[in-house]
């Protein structure tokens, strides 16, 4: 019995042992699992750390990128606004609170150094009241050496990086009452230079290299625009001075022209009245000479007849001269109405040649006209234009030696017809060509001593041509001949 109990006991002990062993085994396995779980938890935690670090870097990059994109966008708008400004003070007015805030700042000041006053003067003030600005201005001028050095060196200072030889960050924080800042020099090629300050009280702002670059670009843009504005100002001032001078000269010229007009009118009036006064006694002289020549007062001896004929001829010349003078005076004063009509140029040329045929024949001068089809019709006053032709061809006849040639040519350019009266005469000296259309001017040479003339013919011709809205000029070479050209409108 005892042995049975012992066996049973042993069996129980053995089973318990087996059970315990298996429990221990299981516990060990569980422990292993727990350890494995712990290890994987630690691993996961390490992975979480990696994720966090990567995420932070990504966020930073993203933030920097966002800042750059929006910064560049704002800078582009701001640059566009600034660069179209041509007044120094207006440039700074373009930098508004909105732009500044979009760039991540709410305070800004820009100072320009005045070489004249030897001090910095504020041009931009955002986020500060007047008394604060004045206080900062005083402090900046007290430390002007530091700011001038910064401008000279062309470097920027910011809460992220400050040059060793510049003021401390704390001093800037305190003076400008900000938590982050950027100071960039405004470098203009000409004139006063300065610096721009931007800052924020935002504790979350962390100035990055990208932001510093953006403000530097902005400062450079301001510098360039200042240069442009100053150049414009300079050019504008010179232009203004020039305009004032031109205006003054124009006024003087107008005055002189008025004076000339008055004198000319007085001259015309004088000529007109004198001519009228001369014509009356001339008519009497001619009349009496004619009575005497007709022998109505008794027979006239030959010698006296000769003299009377001379009186008559000279009186005719004088009448002719007085008439010319009167015509010039009338045309000048606009008293002559040009009766414009379509005329046949060829007909006029032929008529003139016919009129002067006797003289042409006497001097054995060949006359020709070359008037193309498209130049045949001119718009002119018949009687006046005939005088032009008679005068010009008459002159050519006077100054062309025997066996010479006279021709009338025409050519058309658009609505304008140019008529040339060409001779193979003695020609006109170069220095006299400008003056021959003046009244009473006669070239001083041997030919003119022989050939009679009043010196009014060409002046009259010029007046008539100009009254037809035309132009007259001469080209001539001594011993080769002259070409008188004038223009008229085609009919």
């Amino acid at each position, binding site marked *: 019995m005892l042995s049975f109990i012992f066996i049973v006991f042993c069996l129980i002990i053995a089973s318990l042992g087996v059970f315990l062993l298996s429990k221990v085994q299981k516990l060990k396995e569980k422990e292993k699992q727990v350890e494995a779980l712990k290890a994987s938890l630690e691993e996961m935690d390490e992975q979480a750390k990696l994720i*966090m670090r990567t*995420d932070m870097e990504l*966020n930073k990059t993203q933030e920097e990128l966002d800042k750059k994109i929006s910064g560049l966008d704002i800078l582009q708008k701001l640059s566009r606004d600034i660069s179209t400004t041509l007044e120094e003070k207006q440039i700074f007015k373009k930098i508004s609170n909105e732009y500044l805030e979009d760039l991540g700042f709410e305070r800004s000041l820009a100072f320009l150094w005045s070489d004249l006053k030897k001090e910095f003067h504020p041009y931009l003030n955002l986020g500060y009241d007047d008394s604060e600005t004045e206080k900062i201005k005083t402090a900046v001028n007290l430390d002007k050496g530091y700011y001038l050095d910064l401008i000279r060196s062309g470097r920027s200072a910011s809460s992220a990086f400050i040059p060793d030889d510049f003021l401390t960050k704390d001093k800037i924080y305190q003076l400008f009452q900000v938590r982050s800042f950027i100071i960039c020099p405004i470098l203009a090629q000409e004139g006063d230079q300065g610096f721009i300050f931007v800052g924020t*009280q935002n*504790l*979350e702002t*962390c100035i990055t290299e990208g932001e510093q670059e953006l403000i530097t670009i902005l400062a450079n843009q301001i510098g360039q625009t200042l240069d442009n504005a100053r150049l414009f100002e300079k050019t504008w001032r010179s232009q203004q001075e020039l305009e004032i001078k031109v205006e003054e000269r124009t006024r003087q010229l107008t005055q002189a022209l008025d004076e000339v007009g008055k004198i000319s009118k007085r001259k015309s009036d004088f000529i007109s009245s004198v001519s009228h006064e001369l014509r009356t006694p001339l008519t009497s002289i001619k009349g009496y000479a004619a009575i005497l020549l007709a022998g109505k007062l008794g027979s006239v001896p030959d010698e006296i007849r000769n003299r009377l004929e001379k009186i008559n001829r000279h009186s005719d010349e004088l009448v002719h001269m007085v008439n010319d003078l009167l015509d010039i005076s009338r045309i000048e004063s606009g008293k002559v109405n040009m009766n414009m009509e379509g005329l046949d140029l060829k007909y006029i040329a032929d008529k003139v040649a016919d009129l002067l045929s006797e003289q042409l024949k006497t001097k054995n001068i060949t006359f020709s006209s070359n008037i193309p089809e498209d130049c045949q019709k001119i718009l002119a006053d018949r009687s006046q234009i005939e005088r032009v032709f008679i005068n010009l061809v008459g002159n050519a006849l006077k100054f062309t030696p025997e066996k010479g040639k006279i021709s009338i040519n025409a050519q058309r350019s658009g609505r304008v017809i140019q008529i040339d009266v060409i001779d193979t005469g003695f020609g006109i000296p170069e220095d006299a060509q400008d003056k021959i259309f003046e009244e009473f001017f006669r070239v001083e040479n041997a030919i003119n001593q022989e050939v009679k003339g009043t010196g009014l013919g060409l002046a009259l011709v010029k007046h008539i041509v100009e009254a037809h809205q035309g132009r007259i000029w001469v080209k001539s070479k001594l011993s080769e001949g002259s070409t008188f050209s004038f223009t008229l409108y085609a009919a």
Partner: protein
Amino acid sequence: MNISLGFSENKDHIQATNEAVGQAIVGLGKIRADLAIIFTTIEFAHPLVLKIANNLLGGIPILGCSSLGVITNKGIFKHGFVILLISLGQQTFLNLALVKEVSKKTCIAAGRELGEKLLYGCKDVRRNLSLIFSDGLISDGTSLINGVQENLGRSFPLIGASASDNFAFAKTFQYFNKELLTDSCCGLLFGGKINFGFGIKHGWKALGKIRYVTRAEGNIIKEINGEPAVRLYEDYFAKDALELAKELRRISIFYPIGIYLQGEKEYLLRNIISIKDDGSLITQGDIPQDSPIRLMIGTKDSCLAAAVTSCEEAKRNLGAQRTKLVMVFDSASRFTLLGRHCSRELEIIKAVFGENTPLIGIYTYGEQAPLKSINYLGRAYFHNQSINVLALGGQ
């Protein structure tokens, strides 16, 4: 209940006040307003602004605070003045209260005082909702809420916002009638019949293993897993305390500490304000000792997804009621995180509640609300990095 909004971004603060208040008064027509809520950006925080508003409004109660930006249907404005006029129904009433100089008292005492004042005259009526605006620079926002809740009740719906400035963390302002205040907390208690719904979400996800706050005092975490608290961040970001301090604001926004709350789905977030020399972390809001915590990670997408959830919850709470007003208290950290995409959050709110539903909001340095918004609300917490949406409804 009748609602009217007025807004101006006129740079002249007096003209802006006149414009915005004028718009709101005209919007309400002949109906008399019972309450004005004013939110402004920091440059409008001026005694004259409140004086003018008070004169124009004929002395009706005014409540409000400053912010780094104001939110309206028209957009998000970094400069602006927005006013909300509410005319309550006959069965609804309200009581306003203010506690000044919070820093001279303990936060819990200030909270108790505010709670007591809010209850003044309202002890025998049904109370529904409390709205509070506190100085965003008060260090122990949790104790302030706890103090208020001691009087109003632990599961009483307390919604609030901590005023902000333009990230200078220098001075935030609270508006109470004619008074422009700092270092204060003002609030109101709605009683009687008022329909509301709210939702609060952040969108940050837990990452890494759970750790325990082994030593803490209020909003100072001294040790985590028996080591100086800063070791957690040093470990995760492979940076020493000095390097961390330089980027603390960014790290704090992107990777706050999440407190695991038993039975709650969302982690309660805590921003790190600063690192002490002994390696302690100072947080915005308290972290109780022995709390299980994890590091959190957030993305723009998760943030926006949280905004959708928050709005939908607020809308669901209202049931069949028509949304008459949406009030948004959005964390300033989210404004930084979302950057130029912050308008997408506004688009989400408008998409959920409707384009033309009156909308008013601010960016805050802390948000107050219960974690749960459906059925049993639970106690209100002090939140960071969250979007707190309050919808008021009516027939």
